[in-house]
């Protein structure tokens, strides 16, 4: 069965699960370049010292544009776990495991846990950053050519 024929093979940014990561589309592209190197980074303000997350192009506290990239811890500890059994969005498998994790006192994050069986993750467990490739963006080039732009995203996994 066919879908909407005029949309066949078309990419819609408004239906994309993941953000645009290339420098043509996003000023915080270094986050994703660092992520490819398995570094978890964000921006800190050189003027007032505020460490923001997610990374920004201006400081939300003093509005300075003088920002620098800093590393965040790549290991954390689980505070709360949930497993979603119903209503998991397209693109994610059931059960979808989430955890609220403490990143060494620097950040409390709601994250997806991958490479983990149902019932396996417990409060107090140690988790670490896990980087994985996600679907490339088919970017239109000249004369109708399509250039795939590679992407990554991150979740966390249990340290076994």
């Amino acid at each position, binding site marked *: 069965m066919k879908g909407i024929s005029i949309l066949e093979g078309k990419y819609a940014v*408004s*239906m994309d*699960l*993941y*953000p645009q990561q290339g420098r043509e589309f996003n000023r915080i592209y270094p986050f994703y370049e660092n992520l490819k190197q398995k570094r978890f980074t964000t921006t800190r303000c050189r003027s007032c010292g505020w460490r923001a*997350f*997610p990374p920004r192009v201006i400081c939300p506290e003093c509005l300075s544009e003088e920002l620098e990239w800093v590393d965040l811890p790549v290991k954390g500890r689980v505070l*709360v776990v*949930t*497993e*979603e*059994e*119903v*209503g*998991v*969005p*397209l*693109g*994610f498998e059931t059960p*979808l495991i*989430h955890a*609220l994790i403490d990143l060494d006192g620097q*950040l*409390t*994050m*709601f*994250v*997806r846990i991958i490479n983990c069986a149902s019932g396996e993750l417990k409060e107090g467990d140690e988790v670490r950053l896990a980087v994985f490739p996600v679907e490339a963006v088919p970017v239109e080039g000249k004369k109708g050519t399509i250039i795939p732009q590679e992407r990554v*995203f991150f*979740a966390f996994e249990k340290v076994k």
Partner: protein
Amino acid sequence: MRNVCVIAGGQSVWGLRRATQRDLFQEAGKACFEDNNIITNKDIDGLIVASAYTERCSFQTHLAPLVAEYLGIRPRSVCARVELLCASGSSGIIMAYGLIKSGVADVVMVIGGEKLYTPQRWEVNYSELGSVDHDWDGAMGLGLPPPLFAMVAKQHMKKYGTTEEQLAMVSVKNRRNGMNNPKGQFREPVDLQTALEAKTIVRPLKLYDCCPVTDGAAAIILAVEEKARYFTDKPLVYIRGCGQATMSNMTANMASWTTWEALKVAAGQAYQKAGVGPQDVDVAQTHDCFTISEIIEYEDLGFCEKGEGGWFIQEGKSDFGGQVPVNTDGGLLSCGHPFGATGIRQGIEIMRQLRGDAVRQVEGARIGLTHNLSGAIAAHTVVIYGRDLE
């Protein structure tokens, strides 16, 4: 200073509807005018439309002129749409209130609604990825919010001893309140045992702990007091004060998961403007998207001490005859939750309670409150209504 009154309100039937978004807006507009047969569509000078998923599910922007055309309204003071996801409706109400109070508009209809059921059900779940911070929380799979509120519930249970029975009591109460609501999505009662034994959605939340996905619309008319007196023969209901607050958006920036600071700020602002306190509220409609939400809202609205929300429901203090009946029309858990319409539905129920013609009436109610939550617990909107100005 000009005073602002609520003079009419009505809604479409809510649920899984065989109707388009514009069908639903027409039904709600008609129901609103039928509530008060003195005012007509030609008396409305401003229109504010509240809808969050109009682009996602109906592929329609520039919605307000479309709705105006369908309802035979010719706006001349304001004609625009507002969006704050689940609190789009109460955002429309506070904006109409401000425009009327300041003299920009005199008589404004606020109408909100959503068509969420599309031919394939995955679409609305998927669209939810764009309702949280898409690039960060959405990409973690935080779509429909049960996982988020399950984490809230787990932490509240651990910190304050709140129980699964107490969560279930909220749905039992709200389903009971919604039984006679002719426009609600669910009109069947649920008993405690059924609620406790229902299918798990995200532990500890079970089926009846979660509000459903809903198609529907609702409309309300606000007017400056002088015109309100001309356009209605029912008791006047005033908007006494409001507050809307946000302190963070992405989950990583939420200071506390069990105390909703932005709710306290919004409520504090609304109480101060209205010149009342939580002890003065006779009836409230709060955002019971999940049972745990209503329990935390008792606390952070100041109806009880922090951590005692579970006991507040267990002791019947939020039921008819209790300290402050909450969600007297059934709330989101019974009525359903078409995002842009919910705040308007809450306002309509408070209007009826204060006029004295609600389906399930709180006797002698003179001060009512609505609370609307939106996003990943990111924003809170509180409106206080009164039969009296002071």
